[in-house]
Structures are given as structure tokens and as C-alpha cells.
């Protein structure tokens, strides 16, 4: 499969770009909700619109009412979301949770997918337990209790946890903290008694929760996939999420780069446009190269994932790491080249810097994934 978008994908990209630039732009969404101190951190109206565009159910099978598309397509939408810093539940609900639910029972899929596809409900995922992403270690415990389970523990960095109608929780049902096996995924409904959220606003104005599970009683039918066999589901969810986050990061990088290159063509100092200064030209050209490369490997990872390749996992980590490094470079160069005004809240470039920071951290930063690349490569 060639590493560019086919006709259908190019058409989708046009549509997504137009729609998100129009409805999901920074003024209309990120700043709007941020300046109103919105407790969700995103707008439900846009989420509904995204449903009407058919985005929400892209990764859901047609049999379940979705479009049965792949990660290349989801990535197209995510890149535009990244470029516009659009706050939405797309990555967590339509990519992560939707991927987990693929492994769920008919009953679970019927319970949650229609609302998600319709843009009426939101799902979150609860993976991390410490400040760094370490899904290899799960200490939150779910113990057999009657027909179901009793869930105890705590999760952090649950994006939109307080807004979610359902949270996918990775918990340990057997074994010890570091075991690969013994994990079970649960679809925990928002009204589960014993679940409490401490919601905090993050640097990019998104909302995340520290979520506590204090003996939360869960029916057996909340289990996604097999009891004790959740690692495979978790891995699939992480894989989809990382590739998706990489695509969003490509959008962040491209947005920051484009804004900066535009600025180089407008700002004058020393009687010249600053874009005439060769030192800045070379840095911009280098950034361009990096962004192109980051985008290429992200599409590669999407295609491998869609093709079910055994290399998808390695390439997902390559993409996540490369994009994290590249978007970091883009926002750093962006702020520096904007000079003083880059430090002001009035200009958008600083918002890119904030979003990059939160997005790169989500599901593992460049360090984590570079290390993973080494481990998967056997060194």
C-alpha cells in the first residue's frame, strides 16, 4: 500500500480539514471553553457535530453501527484536531474506548457504542497509576465478589474522567503488580458507587481526573474480554491510542510550524523580514524535514496497524517517539521565533506548546517509547 492517502482518504482529509478549521478552530473551541472555565474542557455541541460528520464511529464495525474504517482514517481526523488544538473526546472515546469495546460482549457494545457514535455520550480510559505512563505495572485490584467484582485502587491522568459516561479501567484480577497476565478490563459506568473523581485542569486546559475506586461493586457483565486476559485488550487499546496520539501530534507540529513560517514572512526587524535571516531559514527547513518524517512514520504505523502487522507495535512506538520529539521542536522553535509575543496568551503559538506537552505525555513520552523501541528490538 503506498504511503500516501488514496482518493477516499484524500477526500476525507479535505472534509475533515474544512470542518474542523471551521467548527473546531482555536477561537471557537479551545479558547471559548477555556475562558469560560468549562468543567468538561470541551464542547458537547462539537462532539455532536462530529457524530453527524460520521467521525465518532469511524473505528466501530459497521455491524455495530459504525463506519468500520481504519487508523489511517482516524488519523486524518486526529491530525486536523491536532492542528486546531480542538478539545474533544475523539481520541479517548472514538479511538481508545472504541478499540477496547471491540473486544466487549454484544451486550457491552450495545450498551455504549450507540451513544458514543451518536455523540451523546463520552468514554474515558483509566490506565496510569503514577505520574509516568507505566502500563506494565497495574496495582488497581478487582476481586471476585458474588457474581461480579469489587474494584479498589486509584488511577490518574484520566482524560475527561469526570465527563465520561463510562470509563475503561485496567485492573488486576490476579497475579502481582508487575505481571503481564492477570489483568482485566472493566467498563465502569459513571454512577458506579464508590468511584470518586478529583478533577484537575491541565496545562493545555483539558480536564483530567485522579479517580479513586473504593470497593466499587461491578457486575460480571462489565468485563471487557476475558477475565485475567485483559492484557491483550489493554495492549490493543494502547496501540490504537498511541498511533492516534501520534497523528494528533503531527497536527500540532504542523499547526505550530505553519503559524511560525507565516510569522517569519510578516515580522520585520533590522529592516528585513525575519524570514530573510539565514539562521532562521535553516532552522525552519530543518523543522520542515523533521515534520515530514514524523508524518511519514505515523502513516506507516497506521497502515501497519490496519494491516494487522506484527511490526505495528514497534512502529507505533517509533511514531509516538518521533512525533513527540518533532512536535516539541516545532513548538519550541515556534515560541522562540515569535519572540516576545510568543510568550503572550493573546497569540496561539503558546497554546501549541501547552498542548504538545500534555499530548506527548499521554500514553508515554519520547523517552518511554525510545526505550520501548530498544526493548522491542532486543537491546
Amino acid at each position: 500500500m503506498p504511503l500516501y492517502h488514496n482518493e477516499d482518504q484524500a477526500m476525507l482529509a479535505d472534509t475533515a480539514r474544512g470542518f474542523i478549521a471551521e467548527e473546531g478552530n482555536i477561537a471557537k473551541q479551545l479558547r471559548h471553553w477555556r475562558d469560560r472555565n468549562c468543567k468538561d474542557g470541551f464542547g458537547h455541541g462539537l462532539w455532536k457535530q462530529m457524530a453527524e460528520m460520521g467521525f465518532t464511529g469511524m473505528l466501530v464495525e459497521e455491524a455495530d453501527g459504525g463506519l468500520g474504517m481504519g487508523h489511517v482514517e482516524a488519523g486524518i481526523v486526529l491530525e486536523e484536531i491536532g492542528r486546531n488544538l480542538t478539545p474533544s473526546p475523539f481520541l479517548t472515546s472514538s479511538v481508545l474506548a472504541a478499540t477496547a469495546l471491540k473486544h466487549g460482549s454484544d451486550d457491552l457494545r450495545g450498551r455504549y457504542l450507540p451513544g458514543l457514535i451518536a455523540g451523546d455520550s463520552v468514554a474515558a480510559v483509566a490506565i496510569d497509576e503514577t505520574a509516568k505512563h507505566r502500563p506494565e505495572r497495574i496495582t488497581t485490584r478487582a476481586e471476585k465478589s458474588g457474581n461480579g467484582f469489587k474494584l479498589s485502587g486509584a488511577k490518574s491522568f484520566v482524560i475527561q474522567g469526570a465527563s465520561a459516561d463510562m470509563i475503561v479501567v485496567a485492573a488486576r484480577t490476579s497475579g502481582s503488580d508487575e505481571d503481564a497476565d492477570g489483568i482485566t478490563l472493566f467498563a465502569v459506568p459513571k454512577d458506579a458507587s464508590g468511584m470518586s473523581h478529583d478533577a484537575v485542569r491541565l496545562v493545555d486546559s483539558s480536564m483530567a481526573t485522579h479517580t479513586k475506586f473504593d470497593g466499587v461493586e461491578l457486575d460480571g457483565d462489565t468485563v471487557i474480554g476475558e477475565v485475567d486476559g485483559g492484557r491483550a485488550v489493554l495492549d490493543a487499546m494502547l496501540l490504537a491510542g498511541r498511533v492516534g496520539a501520534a497523528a494528533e501530534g503531527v497536527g500540532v507540529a504542523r499547526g505550530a510550524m505553519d503559524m511560525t513560517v507565516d510569522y517569519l514572512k510578516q515580522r520585520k526587524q533590522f529592516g528585513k523580514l525575519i524570514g530573510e535571516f539565514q539562521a532562521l531559514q535553516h532552522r525552519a527547513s530543518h523543522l520542515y524535514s523533521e515534520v515530514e518524517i514524523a508524518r511519514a512514520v505515523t502513516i506507516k504505523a497506521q497502515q501497519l496497524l490496519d494491516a494487522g502487522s506484527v511490526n505495528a507495535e514497534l512502529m507505533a512506538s517509533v511514531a509516538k517517539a518521533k512525533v513527540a520529539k518533532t512536535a516539541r521542536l516545532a513548538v519550541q522553535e515556534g515560541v522562540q521565533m515569535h519572540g516576545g509575543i510568543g510568550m503572550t496568551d493573546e497569540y496561539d503559538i503558546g497554546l501549541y506548546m501547552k498542548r504538545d506537552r500534555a499530548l506527548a505525555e499521554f500514553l508515554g513520552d519520547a523517552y518511554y517509547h525510545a526505550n520501548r523501541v530498544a526493548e522491542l528490538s532486543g537491546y
Partner: protein
Amino acid sequence: MADLEAFRTETRSWLEANCPPEMREPVRGEDDIYWGGRRATFKNDAQKAWLEACVAKGYTVPMWPKEYGGAGLSPAEAKVLREEMGRINARPPLSSFGIWMLGPALLHFGTEGQKQRFLNEIARGEIRWCQGYSEPGSGSDLVSLQTFGEDKGDHWVVNGQKIWTSYADQADWIFCLVRTDKTDKYQGITFMLFDMASEGVTTKPIKLISGSSPFCETFFDNVAVPKSYGDDCPAYVGTINRGWDVAKYLLGHEREMISGADGGERAAAIGAAMKRHAAKTGDDIDPVLRAELAMFDVDAMAYAAMGEKFLDEIKVGKAHPAQPNMMKYAGTELNKRRHELVMAVGGSRALEWESEATENGKPSKAWLRTKANSIEGGTSEVMLNVIAKRILDLPGA
């Protein structure tokens, strides 16, 4: 040396007697810093007592001459004072751009009358000054500034706009670069001093990405600035149309100050502290991040040695006059890298913007703040230009 030891003993007991315990606590917030000025209020009695003790002793500006409110200390004595204050974690009694910037300019270029009046006001914390240099169209290319003072005989009428005036909304007076001759780019600027309460002066705070607003836009709409404030006290520093000399002197001073400040936090290694920090939150530091920390620590400790060498050389006049530009460049870039790593170790917790655990986003706000390091006081690009020109003597630089 014996004299210095005597001075140390004396200073130690003076501090013991005069520095209130509350003033020996680390600065925790903006209101722990006393900036002085007409509208200043003391946070508590201790802050007031500490200021007054220092003013009486000349210790708000220890190296300034006594007649201008200082203590007339030698560099060696001042170092002892700094060390002794550091020993008990004594806070600076007074912070101000008058002390850091206008003062040095007046000491170098001012008339006796200006020194008598303005330096004493600064030393006592009576007048809070702000700096009017940059303009929206004149950042790195400062000398292209457009704010114009029309000569009306005994006064100028000033019109224009400044940006990045630190705390202009809280300042009493401004020292300000104003074009007074449009025909000569460099020799057409006057370094004026005037009251921010003058009619026609308005300020508008600039909100930064870190959420704080330490800077303002400042607008001058037909502001009348008299040419003199009395005998031997002109309203400008140096000579009319030669304010660029003063500005350049101050920019050099500023870079030196920024670069000289690097013995502290900026130059410190962080790996060990980061490991402890991570352990506290149950995190480990992954091997690739650890390697980055190690490479950073190498650079940080090397830079610390450079800072020490630079200060040693400055003292005896051995440093290249443009070396502060190198220090500023390297130090600010290093500091940005430091905070990137602190954020990386901090993980999702460090992302929190409004939370108790982070005291409302301290790590992320500090991180964002560092991004200005390589812009303010001369961008990294300008520093590199200056090194190319003045140190490496590259053509056309």
C-alpha cells in the same frame, strides 16, 4: 583579609539582630517580594522592619556610595554580605528595576543632582521604576524605536507605544527611550525619565502563557515631559540624542546580571534530585530519560564552572567584554532544557495547572516562564550575532 573577617563578624551580628525570622523564609509568592514605590504596602511588620533596617544601614544597595543611600561597600565586602545573608536565607529587603537598572545608569552617566534625588529615592524604596525600551515593532532591533518626543522648548510632547514594560501598571516613574531626532537612527534617541502619573500615560497588562501578567503595554498620548526637574537635574540621562549610549551600557549590564546570576539554580545538576522526586511519587526514571539527565548534568556542571570562571575573570577585568552574551546565551538555553526535563520527570502530575498538589501549576508555570529567558534582555539569536561579530570577528556579523 583580617578586615574582611571583622566585617563578616560584624555583619553576622547585625543580621542576627536586624533580620526578622519571617524574612529568613524562602520567597513563596509574588507578595513576599517587596518592590517599594508610592503605592506599596507591606505584607507584614517583619517585611517593613527588615526594609527599614536595611535602608538605615544602606543595605538595600550595599555597593552604592553612602551619600546616595548605599553602604559604600567594596566588592569583597559586598560578597561577604551576600554570603552572610545567604547563610541565614535572608530575603532581599527591596527589589526594583531602580536598583538593578536605572541606578547603575545614573551612577555612570547621571549628574550630581540626579544622583542625589533619584538614587536616594530608589535606595529607600520610595519610587518604583519601570523600563520603557521595546516597542511592538522594535524588539531585537531596539534602535528602530518610533516613540517620538517633539521638542517644545522647555518640554517634549511624547507620543508612542512601549511594550514589555515590567509592572508598568504598578510603577511610579519610567526610564524610557524616546526618539528626539528622526534623521539619525542611533544618535537620535534620548533616555528620558518621567512620572507615570503624567497625563496621557496609560498601561495595559499583557497576559502571558504562564497566566501571569508581569508586563504591560504602555501608551503615551501627548505626554508632556519637562526637560528639567530642577537644578542639575535634567529629565534625561546623559546627553539629548545620545540615549543609545546609556541604553547599550544598560543592556550590557543586564546581560552581565543575567549571566552572573547563574551560580545558582541554573547551573545546578538535577539528576539526583529528580530521582528523589520520582521516588516520592512512586515513579521510576526510565533509562533513556536518565541518560538525558546525565547529559544535562554534564552540561550544567560544566556551565557552573564557566560561571565561576566568568565571575573570577570579570573581577580582574580578564573577561572578554562580549563574554556576557555568551553566558546569557548558554545559561538561558540550559535553563530551558532544565525545565523541559523537570516536566518530563514530573509526568502527568507536572501538567496540572490548577491543583493543590502543584500549588496551582508551579512546575508548568515555571517551565513556561523559562521560555522567555532566551528572548528577554536580548534573544539567543542576538547573542549569537554579537559573539560572531565581537568575539569571533566574523565578516558582516
